[in-house]
C-alpha cells in the first residue's frame, strides 16, 4: 500500500518535473499554433472568392500602397491626388495615416530585396491576417504583464486570435487601418505596462515608439492618449481612497514611464503630417497634457516634503494641488471657448452620443457609426462577455497598477463600443484579455482541486497534518472543467463560423445561389468599373454617391467628385442635391461640376439591398443640411419613404429615381408580378415609361446592379429657345410683349431679330 502511494507520488513528481522543464517549449509551441490559427481562420475569403481587396476604404489604401511602392515614401508625402474630389483634388500625403501603407511597402520592398517577386496586391490582401497573429502574441505579452501568469496569456491569445469582432476587420483582403492598428494598440499597452511595472526609462521610450506606430496607423490612437492619463488619475484616486504601502513606489514608476512616454510620444505623433500640431492643441490631447503637468507638480511636492514639517507640507500641498487643478480646468475651458482647441465630431459623438444625430448627418449616416445592440455584443464577442466578469473579479480582488489598468480598459471601451458598433473592435482585445484572465482563474481553481485529491495531505516536520487548504470538491471541479472547455470550444466553433460565413464577403463580389442550389458569382461591380476604365475618356469625371468613390478611382482609374474620405461636407452635399433634384436642375449642377458620367447602384432587379435607393434618404438629409431647399419630407409619400404610386412627385421625378428605374418597367423580375416590380422594396414602381432628356444610358451591368449614364451635351441652340420659338410666339408690336426689368433689352433685341426673320420669311 505504501509502495503504491510511493509510485503515485513519484509519478506525480516526475510529471511535475517534466512539465516544469518543458513548459517554455510548450508555451512557444502553443503560441505558434495560435498564431497560425489566427492566420488561417482569416483566409476563408481568399479560398471562397479570390485574392481581392474588399469593400470601400481598403481600395483607397490599396491604391495608395501601389503609389507608395512605385514612388517611395516621399512620393507619397508629396502626392496631390487630382483624381478625387474634382475639382478640388486632395493632398493625400497630409491627409492620410501612412502606417498601413508603409508597413505593406516595407514588406514588399523586403521581399523584393530577397528576390521574392510578390505582387503588392497580395501583400495588401494578406497583411491583416499576419498582423492578427502579431496581435495574438501582443495579447499574450500584455496578459502576462498584467497577471504574471503565462497560462492566462495563452488563453487570452487564443481568444483574441479568433474573436469575431476583430476578424470582421482583419480577414484577408480587408486592407484597412484597423488591421494593423489593433496590434499597435495592444502592443502599446503591453509596452507601457512593462514600463509601469519596471519603472524603466527605456521601456517608457519603447512605449512612445509603439505609440508612434499606432499614431501613424489609425485615428483611434486618441483612445490610448486618453486612457493612459485616466489610468494615472485613477491611481491617484486609489492612493487617496485606499492607501497601500507601495503607493509611492508605484507612482514614482508611473512618473518615469509616463514622462518618457508623453514627451517623446507627443514629438513622434507630430511627425505624422496628418496629426502635426493637433497633438498639441486638439482637445483629444488635453488630458495627456494636464496629467503630465500634474505629475510633475506632484513629484516636485513630494521632493519638497523631505525638507519641511508635516503640517506645513500638508497646507502647502493642498494649496498647490487646488490651484493647479483649477488652473488646468480654466485653461482648458478658455482654449475650448476661444476656439483655440476643438473637438472633432467623431470624438464628440463618443462623449455625447446624440451629437452626431443632431448635427453631423454625414457621421450618422455611416452604418458602422451606429449604436450597438446587445445582440451585436453577443455575436461579435460571444462567450467572452460571460467570462469577462470573472476576469474583473480576479483583477479587482487584489488590485495592482496593471490589473487596475486592465479593468479600466474594459470599462471604458465597453462604453465606447456601446456608442459605435465600429468600436467593438477596441473592446475585443480588452474583453479577450479579461476573459483569458477569468478562464485561466477558473481552470486554475478547478485543476488545483483535482490535483489536491491526488496529493497526500502534507505533513510538517513534527508529523502533524497541516490544515488543508479550502478546495472545490474534485469531482465537481472536473465537471466544471469539462464545461468550461466545452464553452471555449463552442466559442471557437462560433468564431470559425463567423469568420467563414459572415465576415468573409469581399462585398465587391457577391455570391448567390440559383434555384437548383448551385453557387454563382455576381461580379457586377468589377464588370462596370472595368467598363468605365476601357470605354470612357481618360479624364472623364464620374459622379456617384461617396460610398463608391474609392472603388471607382481604384478600379476604373477615373476622376470622381466625392469619395469615402468625407472631408468636404459641402461637396458631398452638392452631389446629394444633384441626386435629389429634378432632372433639369441636376443637369445644371452636373454641367457646373463638369460631370461626364453618373453612376448609380441599383439592387431592385437582383435582390441587392445595399443600393442607392435605400441610401437615398441620407443623400437628401446631407444635401438638405447644406441646401435647405431640399426637404426630407418632400420625399415621404403618405408619411413613408416609398417608391410606388403613392410616392410624392418630388421623389418620382428626382434624378436618383429616374436613373435607377429608367426602363425598369420593360422587364419582369418575377413571373407572378407585374413588370417594374422592385424586388428589394417589394413593390411596383410608381413612375413608368418616362424618357430621359439630359442623360443617356451608357452601361448597365449584367444584373443591373450598376447603371452608368452619360451626361448629354446641350443640344444645338439649347438655352436660346426663346429666340427660335419667338418667330411664332413673339407679338407683332413691341409694346404687346410682357417686359420685365432686366430682360427688357433682351426682348427688344429679340423683337428686332424676329422682325428681321419675318421679313425674310
Amino acid at each position, binding site marked *: 500500500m505504501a509502495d503504491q502511494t510511493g509510485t503515485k507520488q513519484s509519478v506525480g513528481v516526475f510529471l511535475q518535473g517534466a512539465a516544469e522543464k518543458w513548459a517554455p517549449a510548450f508555451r512557444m509551441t502553443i503560441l505558434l499554433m495560435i498564431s497560425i490559427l489566427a492566420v488561417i481562420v482569416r483566409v476563408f475569403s481568399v479560398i471562397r472568392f479570390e485574392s481581392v481587396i474588399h469593400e470601400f476604404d481598403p481600395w483607397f489604401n490599396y491604391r495608395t500602397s501601389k503609389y507608395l511602392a512605385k514612388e517611395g515614401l516621399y512620393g507619397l508625402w508629396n502626392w496631390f491626388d487630382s483624381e478625387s474630389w474634382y475639382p478640388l483634388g486632395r493632398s493625400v500625403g497630409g491627409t492620410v495615416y501612412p502606417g498601413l501603407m508603409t508597413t505593406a511597402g516595407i514588406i514588399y520592398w523586403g521581399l523584393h530585396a530577397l528576390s521574392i517577386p510578390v505582387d503588392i496586391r497580395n501583400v495588401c490582401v494578406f497583411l491583416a491576417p499576419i498582423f492578427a497573429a502579431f496581435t495574438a502574441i501582443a495579447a499574450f505579452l500584455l496578459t502576462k504583464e498584467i497577471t504574471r501568469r503565462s497560462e492566462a496569456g495563452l488563453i487570452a491569445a487564443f481568444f483574441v486570435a479568433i474573436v469575431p469582432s476583430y476578424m470582421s476587420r482583419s480577414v484577408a483582403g480587408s486592407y484597412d487601418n484597423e488591421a494593423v492598428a489593433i496590434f499597435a494598440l495592444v502592443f502599446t499597452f503591453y509596452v507601457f505596462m512593462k514600463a509601469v511595472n519596471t519603472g524603466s526609462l527605456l521601456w517608457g521610450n519603447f512605449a512612445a515608439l509603439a505609440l508612434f506606430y499606432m499614431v501613424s496607423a489609425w485615428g483611434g490612437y486618441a483612445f490610448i492618449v486618453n486612457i493612459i492619463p485616466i489610468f494615472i488619475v485613477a491611481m491617484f484616486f486609489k492612493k487617496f481612497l485606499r492607501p497601500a504601502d507601495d503607493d509611492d513606489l508605484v507612482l514614482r514608476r508611473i512618473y518615469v514611464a509616463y514622462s518618457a512616454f508623453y514627451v517623446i510620444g507627443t514629438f513622434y505623433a507630430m511627425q505624422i503630417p496628418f496629426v502635426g500640431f493637433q497633438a498639441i492643441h486638439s482637445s483629444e490631447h488635453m488630458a495627456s497634457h494636464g496629467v503630465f503637468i500634474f505629475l510633475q507638480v506632484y513629484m516636485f511636492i513630494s521632493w519638497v516634503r523631505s525638507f519641511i514639517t508635516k503640517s506645513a507640507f500638508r497646507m502647502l500641498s493642498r494649496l498647490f494641488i487646488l490651484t493647479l487643478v483649477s488652473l488646468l480646468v480654466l485653461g482648458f475651458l478658455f482654449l475650448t471657448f476661444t476656439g483655440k482647441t476643438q473637438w472633432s465630431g467623431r470624438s464628440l459623438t463618443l462623449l455625447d452620443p446624440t451629437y452626431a444625430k443632431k448635427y453631423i448627418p454625414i457621421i450618422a449616416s455611416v452604418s458602422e457609426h451606429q449604436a450597438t*445592440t446587445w445582440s451585436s455584443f453577443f455575436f461579435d464577442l460571444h462567450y467572452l462577455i460571460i467570462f469577462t466578469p470573472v476576469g474583473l473579479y480576479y483583477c479587482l480582488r487584489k488590485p495592482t497598477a496593471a490589473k487596475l489598468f486592465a479593468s479600466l480598459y474594459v470599462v471604458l471601451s465597453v462604453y465606447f463600443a456601446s456608442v459605435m458598433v465600429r468600436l467593438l473592435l477596441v473592446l475585443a482585445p480588452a474583453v479577450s484579455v479579461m476573459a483569458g484572465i477569468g478562464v485561466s482563474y477558473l481552470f486554475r481553481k478547478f485543476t488545483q482541486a483535482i490535483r489536491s485529491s491526488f496529493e497526500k495531505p502534507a505533513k510538517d516536520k513534527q508529523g502533524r497534518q497541516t490544515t488543508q487548504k479550502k478546495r472545490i470538491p474534485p469531482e465537481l471541479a472536473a465537471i466544471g472543467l469539462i464545461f468550461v472547455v466545452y464553452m471555449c470550444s463552442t466559442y471557437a466553433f462560433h468564431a470559425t463560423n463567423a469568420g467563414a460565413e459572415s465576415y468573409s464577403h469581399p462585398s465587391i463580389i457577391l455570391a448567390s445561389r440559383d434555384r437548383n442550389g448551385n453557387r454563382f458569382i455576381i461580379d457586377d461591380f468589377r464588370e462596370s468599373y472595368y467598363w468605365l476604365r476601357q470605354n470612357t475618356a481618360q479624364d472623364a469625371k464620374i459622379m456617384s454617391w461617396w460610398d463608391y468613390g474609392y472603388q471607382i478611382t481604384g478600379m476604373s482609374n477615373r476622376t470622381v467628385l466625392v469619395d469615402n474620405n468625407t472631408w468636404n461636407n459641402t461637396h458631398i452635399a452638392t452631389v446629394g442635391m444633384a441626386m435629389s433634384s429634378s432632372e433639369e436642375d441636376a443637369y445644371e449642377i452636373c454641367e457646373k461640376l463638369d460631370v461626364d458620367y453618373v453612376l448609380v447602384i441599383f439592387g431592385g432587379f437582383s435582390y441587392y439591398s445595399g443600393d442607392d435607393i435605400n441610401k437615398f434618404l441620407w443623400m437628401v438629409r446631407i444635401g438638405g443640411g447644406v441646401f435647405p431647399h431640399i426637404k426630407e419630407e418632400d420625399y415621404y409619400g403618405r408619411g413613408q419613404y416609398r417608391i410606388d404610386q403613392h410616392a410624392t412627385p418630388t421623389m418620382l421625378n428626382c434624378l436618383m429615381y429616374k436613373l435607377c428605374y429608367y426602363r425598369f418597367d420593360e422587364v419582369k423580375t418575377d413571373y407572378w408580378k407585374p413588370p417594374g416590380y422592385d424586388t428589394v422594396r417589394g413593390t411596383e414602381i410608381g413612375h413608368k415609361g418616362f424618357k430621359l432628356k439630359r442623360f443617356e444610358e451608357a452601361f448597365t451591368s449584367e444584373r443591373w446592379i450598376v447603371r452608368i449614364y452619360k451626361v448629354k451635351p446641350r443640344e444645338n441652340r439649347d438655352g436660346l429657345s426663346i429666340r427660335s420659338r419667338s418667330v411664332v410666339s413673339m407679338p407683332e408690336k413691341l409694346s404687346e410683349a410682357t417686359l420685365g426689368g432686366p430682360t427688357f433689352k433682351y426682348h427688344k433685341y429679340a423683337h428686332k431679330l424676329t422682325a428681321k426673320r419675318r421679313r425674310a420669311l
Partner: protein
Amino acid sequence: MMKVVLVLGILAILGLAQTQVKSKVAELRQLADQEPSGVISLNAKTYKYFVTDTPRPYDLVIFFTADNCKLCEQIYIEYSTVAKLYRDGGAFYSSRKDGRRHRAVFFAKLQFTEATRDIFQKFHFNSVPNILVSLPKMTSIGSEENMQAYLKQYLWIMSVSDGVITSSKLLDHVNKKTGRNVEYKEPIINIFITLGILGAVGFGGYLLLTALKSILGNPRVWLLGALITYSLCMAGIVFNILHGVPFTSVDRNGNVEWFAKGARTQLGAEGYIMSFSITLAGALLIGILKYGPSEDRSKARLLFAVFGIAFMLVLFHIESVYREKVHHYNPSFWPPAHYIRGPLMNDQGNSL
C-alpha cells in the same frame, strides 16, 4: 448757363439719391440699435420701404414668424444670437476685405398679421419659421420663374427634418449667403456658467469622496461599479436613447412582445434583460469560485450544484433567445454541407 444748371441739377439729384441711400442705411442702423438683440421688427409698411423699394444697398435677413409658434420662439433665440454676433463683428457696416466688398447686413423679423398676410402669401408660406436672405438683386427680379430660382437659393423653409437648429448652424447659413465670414463666439456669460457648474461639481465630488472614503475605497465597490457599467453599456442603452426604442411592443395578435427579431434592432426591455443575464452568468461563475471552496464538503457540493445549474439555465436562456432572434446563428460549425469539397478549383469562387 443752361449747362451749369443741368450739371447742378444732376448733382442735386445724385446727392439726393445718395442721401436717401445713406439715410435708409442709417435708419436701419438706428432701428437696430434700439433693440437689444439688434433684430428690427418690420411691418407691412416698413417691409415695403426697406425690402422692396429701391435703392437699397444692404442685405437684409428676414425672419418670418407668427404668434403661438413654439418652434419660432426657440429658433428666434438662436437667430438673435446670430444678429448679435453680426453686430459685434461690425457687419452692420459695409466694408471691404480681401478685395471683396461686403454690404451692410441687417436682421429683421416679420410677424404674421392681417396686414402682412399678402407678403406671406406672395412667398407661398405654409409654415413658419422661415428665414430669407434678401440681397439687393432681389428687388430687380422680374419674372416669377427667376424669383423661384432666387428663393430656392436664399429662402430657408424650416421644418422638423432640419434637426436641431443651433446658432452656429444659422450663422453658417447667413455667412454663406451674404459672403461674410463672421465667426462664432461663445458668450462670456455661458463660459462663467459652465465654469461655475464645473467648480460646484468638482467641489461636491471632493466632499462626496471624503465623506464616502471607506465605501469608495473598497475594491468590491469598484467591482460592482464596473459590472454595472458593463451591463448597462452592453444593454445598448445608447441605442435605446438614440432610437427612442419602446420598452416592449405589441404584436399583431395583441400579445406583449419582449424581443425584437433581427440582429440590428432590439427593444428596451430586451437589452436590459439579456445584458443582465450575461452579467449574471458571469457572477454565478464568480460565485462558484468564491463560495465553492469550503471545508464542509456537502455544503460545498450543494453550493456548487446550485450555482452550476443556475449558470447553465441562464446560459441556455441566452442561447435560446439569441437563436430565436438571429436565425443564422450556428455555433456548431464544422465545414457546412454547402462547402464544396474536393479539388481546390471546385470552390475558387470565380468559377461559375
